[in-house]
């Protein structure tokens, strides 16, 4: 059994102004949890029944809602050099929500996340799986049904429109760079062969192909010193890691690649695309901060198995 898509990611945290204090949001093992809200689903029920909304849980719900949102791939970073400069102060200034009824969330990277709490602002289509202490799992089952029923009811109101969804998506991206890459990975996984949208991804093929090309191009440019514009990628649906070839027209080299969408989730998103001059095409096994990958030293080579390790903010080949 291969490793889950998030196995090569380390944890990430952000601090959230929630209630009277700062709370911690923690991303680990593929899901986002609100550390100070262990009875998250109970609170969601109360909120849905008219209680106070909880900023922490609103972020968690928004994360779950946008974990298959293809616009995240259209907006998110393409490479480490491609940095999003949007801050939540800016979003607060320019979004229709304005500065009314907001809570401030501060991530470890220093960016600030401002969450709208106006009526109807955070409508949820489904909830994110929350971590619940094992002992309480049984009596939470009934609540879970109520939550999912309530969450499926989109709140009505003038704010339940595209602007809200756009604002929510951008606020998630404004959580900071680690969260941008993790959310991109989650979306790519949802549309990969193992993801929840595997059966319907043909309609999203242009968006997925563009996302793949846009992310492979900078990595390939660094790898082979080619013009990123000459990189053409396509979605690989079959078995194996895909294929890759280089052709030359005069002095211009063209790279053609077929890679699975899961490459985005398991290789690119954890920052494994290029490790010490090798293009990683597949993660065989991972348990952050270590991983075993298949990597190409040059186009046309057979991919070789490689042990890599995350250290000092980058992946490098592990000493054998």
């Amino acid at each position, binding site marked *: 059994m291969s490793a889950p898509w998030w196995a090569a990611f380390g944890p990430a945290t952000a601090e959230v102004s929630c209630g009277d204090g700062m709370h911690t949001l923690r991303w680990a093992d593929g899901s986002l949890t609100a550390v100070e809200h262990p009875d998250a689903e109970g609170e969601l029920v109360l909120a849905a029944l008219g209680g106070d909304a909880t900023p922490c849980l609103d972020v968690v719900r928004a994360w779950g809602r946008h974990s298959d949102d293809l616009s995240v791939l259209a*907006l998110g970073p393409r490479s480490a050099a*491609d940095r*999003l400069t*949007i801050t939540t102060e800016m979003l607060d*200034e*320019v979004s229709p929500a304005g500065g009314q009824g907001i809570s401030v969330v501060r991530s470890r990277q220093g960016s600030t996340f401002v969450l709208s709490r106006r009526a109807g602002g955070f409508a949820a289509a489904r909830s994110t799986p929350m971590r619940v202490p094992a002992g309480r799992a049984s009596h939470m089952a009934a609540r879970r049904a109520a939550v999912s029923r309530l969450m499926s009811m989109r709140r009505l109101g003038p704010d339940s429109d595209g602007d809200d969804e*756009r604002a929510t998506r951008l606020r998630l991206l404004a959580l900071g760079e680690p969260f941008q890459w993790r959310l991109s990975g989650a979306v790519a996984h949802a549309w990969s062969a193992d993801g929840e949208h595997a059966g319907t991804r043909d309609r999203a093929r242009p968006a997925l*192909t563009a996302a793949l090309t846009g992310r492979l191009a900078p990595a390939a440019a660094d790898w082979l010193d080619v013009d990123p514009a000459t990189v053409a990628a396509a979605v690989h649906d079959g078995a194996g890691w895909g294929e890759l070839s280089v052709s030359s027209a005069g002095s211009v080299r063209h790279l053609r690649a077929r890679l699975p969408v899961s490459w985005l989730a398991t290789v690119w998103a954890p920052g494994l695309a290029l490790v010490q001059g090798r293009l990683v095409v597949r993660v065989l096994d991972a348990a952050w901060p270590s991983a075993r990958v298949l990597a190409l030293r040059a186009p046309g080579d057979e991919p070789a198995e490689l042990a890599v390790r995350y250290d000092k903010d980058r992946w490098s080949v592990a000493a054998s």
Partner: protein
Amino acid sequence: MGAAEESEDLDRGRAELYLRLQVEAELRRGLGLPRYEPPRPRLFPDRVLGAVVTVLQARRHAAMLRRLRRASTGSAVRPVIRWFRRFVAGKAAGLGQRPLAWLVSQRFAWRRWIRLRLWRITRHRRRRTELERTTSVDVVVERISGLAAAMSAIGAISETTQAQVLEDLQTSLAIRGMTDPHLIFGQLPWRPWAQPPQPHTSGPLRAIPVGVVAETDVDGQRGRIYLGTLVTDASSATLTFRARFEQPAARSSAAPGQLRQVRMRHHSMLSALQKFAATDNLGGSYSINFSGGGGGEDWRGRLDVSPVPPAAARWLDLSVPDAAAPVRIPLDAAPPPHEVSIRALDPAGTADRFLDNCIVEQLQQIRPADDEDAGDWPGVFDLAADLLAAGILTKHSPSLARLAAVARWLKRRLPDPLSGVEPGVVPAEWLSLLARAASADGPAGIVPVAAALPVVDGAHCVVTELESEADSMALQVHARGWPDPHRYGAGRAEPFRWSARDDVGGWYTSSESGWSYSNGEADMDLRLHPAVSPRARELQIILTGRTAEASVSVPLNWQPAPLRRVPPR
């Protein structure tokens, strides 16, 4: 499913992929552009800042004067200094009563001069950088939005995809600091905030010729109104309206304390034109609501009659402000027996027709004096190359062959992606357009048309009037189920096209001259080019949509223009 969704012959996935890859390429290029810098906020209003600066300068000047005095205290040259002060004071009086402090401060003027020059240099650099960045980003957005609009108009991508791709592009640029972040939630030109036009569901439109002229005095302005055509259906009755006044109508005078914005938006004529009322032969009374606009001497729009006159009503008497007698509007007049037809278009030719329209748009800008340099030909070439690369056109597409023929005729070089296209023949219609481009021998007059066209792609149009002048021709159209003219914004690609053909081989293209629009209902003022041939006896007016083409043949029985200039009183 709209007409765009019906073009199944096109490989929509390939077209969308091409568009998205163009966005990726542009974003990569954008990474090298200078970042957007928001304007620096001013802490204080200019007046407050100016007052503070003045006070500080005065204090500094006074301090300089005090230093000068202290330096001279106890000195042997004190009398000389006194004399000098008197001399300077006298000079100051001669220099326009300038204070002594000002004269002394001139000692330090060179510092200020240098600071000013440095500030101007840095400001100029900042502005130049800003201009370069803005221009580059604008070019990116304009190119992609133009391509997306073209693909959407052709039906190669859906309008939803068009809006989504462009919104993602604009947002991507903004969150990377390449554009103003306010654009993220601004009213982007391509955002489909305007609802799609509602299909016309109130039964068939009837066009009743009216053609009545009346003298009027509206809000103190003497003028003449022309009521052209009454358009009715089961739920509405509308009279086309035009007016020309003796003098330009003035804006309403500002009430004390009234906001300037309110003054700018309100025109006294808009409320004055609401003074119409009507009765019918059955004793029923009607309210009349004017909608439309104008400025200066000319106003146009429509008069909506409410409620809809019953079937038994034979006429309406419209009371016109300050007219001697009511104007009688016939309700049972038979529409003119114009020949109206409709034909289905081959969906496979949508892209060719679109590119042909783009070529013709450029051709109609060419005048003999322009030395054939007019028009955005590189833009058309790039669009054609994009459509070819996206698989929407092939190298054997007839429109590309016509583009190559026009390029050869204009002695313009096609870009490399189009170099393999074999030139075809420039259509005779296009040549006739060019041959009469500068003609100014058109007849002067008006033809009341009052012809309802069959429904084309959900739009139901009534051609109300045709008006000719020596160098141009105008077409008035009332439409229901018409797309919002704002909807296509920057990357505008019209789904409909008006043209005309006369009985002596002349062909005419259209451009928009003015319109008013509300909730799918539009009144359009279209300009037809070139001027109509004086030999023409009949004109076929053609509306081309994505899937069908409707036309009406109109005999050109010119009548004197009803709205000739009003002689001064």
